């Protein structure tokens, strides 16, 4: 009986100790701005420097050499020298497809949005470019052209940004709002065409560089609002194409 009580007390104490004391083997350390997957950092504090004499770059990461001696015939440096973060560069899209459903004629409300999210943690800067594979095309090979400007607006949507408030302006176009979007979109009041592959180069829809004030971090969010307006002579059909986003850090 006594033995049973002792075992129970021991078990209870062990349970209490286990719950009260967190496990010490940390597999990763993270905050909103960084994540360290291998917490065995072997590094000194601060940047070693002596005014006017020398300056060394320090990179953190795994316990591995950064810049090798050239005696082996090569040197490698992975990541940006001046960003002490190993958060991967990441890019997200939501939703994956833009489903416009049945299009109404002569209205500016056939709109769908797509959210772009970038975590630029370890990148000096970044850009997200967009391009369509072709015009919106039906099975019968009819197309919905890229939008033209409103009457009286002298813009060229291929290279410039223009207003689109007239219901008699037809076609397909988009605008951008949110973080790090080109200022030409004027907070979503100006529209553009998408570049068509392969003839036209993809155009920047989001991005910032250090010279533009880029701050490495998480959760840079922009929204693309895509709009279609068709006239009453548009051939009936299901129109589709493929929109490609290219997310690349700067060099």
């Amino acid at each position, binding site marked *: 009986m006594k033995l049973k009580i002792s075992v129970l007390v021991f078990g209870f104490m062990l349970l209490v100790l286990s719950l009260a004391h967190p496990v010490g083997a940390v597999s990763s350390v993270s905050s909103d701005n960084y994540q360290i997957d291998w917490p065995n950092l072997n590094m000194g504090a601060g940047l070693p420097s002596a005014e006017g004499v*020398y300056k060394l*770059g320090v990179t953190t990461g795994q316990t591995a050499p950064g810049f090798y001696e*050239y005696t*082996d*015939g*090569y*040197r*490698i*440096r*992975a*990541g*940006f*020298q*001046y960003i002490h973060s*190993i958060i*991967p*560069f*990441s*890019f*997200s*899209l*939501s939703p*994956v*497809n*833009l*489903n*416009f*459903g*049945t299009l109404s004629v002569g209205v500016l409300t056939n709109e769908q949005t*797509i959210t772009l*999210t970038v*975590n630029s943690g*370890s*990148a*000096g*800067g970044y*850009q997200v470019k967009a391009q369509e594979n072709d015009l*919106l095309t039906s099975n019968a090979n009819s197309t919905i052209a890229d939008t033209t400007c409103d009457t009286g607006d002298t813009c060229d949507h291929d290279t410039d940004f223009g207003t689109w408030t007239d219901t008699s302006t037809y076609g397909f176009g988009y605008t951008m709002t949110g973080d790090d979007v080109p200022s030409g979109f004027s907070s979503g009041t100006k529209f553009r065409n998408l570049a068509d592959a392969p003839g036209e180069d993809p155009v*920047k829809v989001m*991005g910032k*560089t*250090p*010279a*533009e004030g880029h701050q490495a971090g998480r959760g840079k969010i922009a929204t693309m609002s*895509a709009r*279609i307006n068709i006239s009453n002579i548009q051939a009936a059909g*299901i*129109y*589709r*194409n*493929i*929109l*490609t*986003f*290219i*997310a*690349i*850090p*700067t*060099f």
Partner: protein
Amino acid sequence: MQKVKLHSKIQNFKFLIVIFIFSFLFLNLATKATQAQSLSLSIWPPLLEVMMQPGKSITQVYKLKNNGETDLAFTSSIVPFKPADELGNIKLENSRLPPWFSFQNANLDLSQKFLLKAGETQEVVLKIKVPEQTLEKDYHATLLFETIPGVFLGQSGMQTQAKIGSNILLTVSQSGQPLKKAEIVKFAIRNLKIRQLPIIDSFTKPQFLLRIKNTGPALFKPAGAITASGWFGQKYVLNLLPENVLVNSTRLVGCENQIDAKFLLGPYKTKVEFGLDTLETDYSAEITFFALPIKFILGIIIAVVVIWFVKAKLGVDKRLL
């Protein structure tokens, strides 16, 4: 009789529970399927800088992660690029690079399609092998992973495809110390208050414009600082960001920090000095700007004018009375 009724009620209750559980599971599963509407990718490292001798080879591990909710099919490629602007953005080119790049993975080759399940990471070992007799110069490429669009069952609309890339800056050099040459294209103050004149407001922090051109045969990073020295011996040192300046291109180089003063006054002699990859003073340029309390002076002038106007008005009113 009562027993039969009770039994019947229990049977009905059981049936309802079964229906409820079935509906709950069905709805939950169906919702999950329709909510799988996002795509998320990440890549590490974001940049790879390599200098190597002809005849040598190196390997680098890349990690591609599918952070999304659905499995994705991918393909990969190595695409040459050139600078798109002076900011560090790139323009992918249609040309091809020599076949120096390959994957060392046992089950995956470069350009081969592969499936990456939701939440999983694919590690690829990129091998770069530069043949003997290769011309000593820089080669720039992007390792690109692209999703293969699935079937789109909706009505009129667009399918999306995502590409995520990481840039590779490869310098082929026998000595490991290729010749590096630069030119300061422009060193000026961006936020001048009065056109052409190097004057800023005392309450504004000066923003420097530094454009550096690479006139040599290999890329470099400027290593140095901008130093602003004031009338009263104040000294502000702004370290240059060690950003890559590619061959035959110009780059707008920023600073790691800003002048940490809230009020500046008088002339500031400002000098930029830098070396190429090493902290030297091989390249330098100098400007002088003046910090004046323009807004403050304007405020006083406006206040004096208003007071004068009010006084004059009151004087006229008194005379009329």
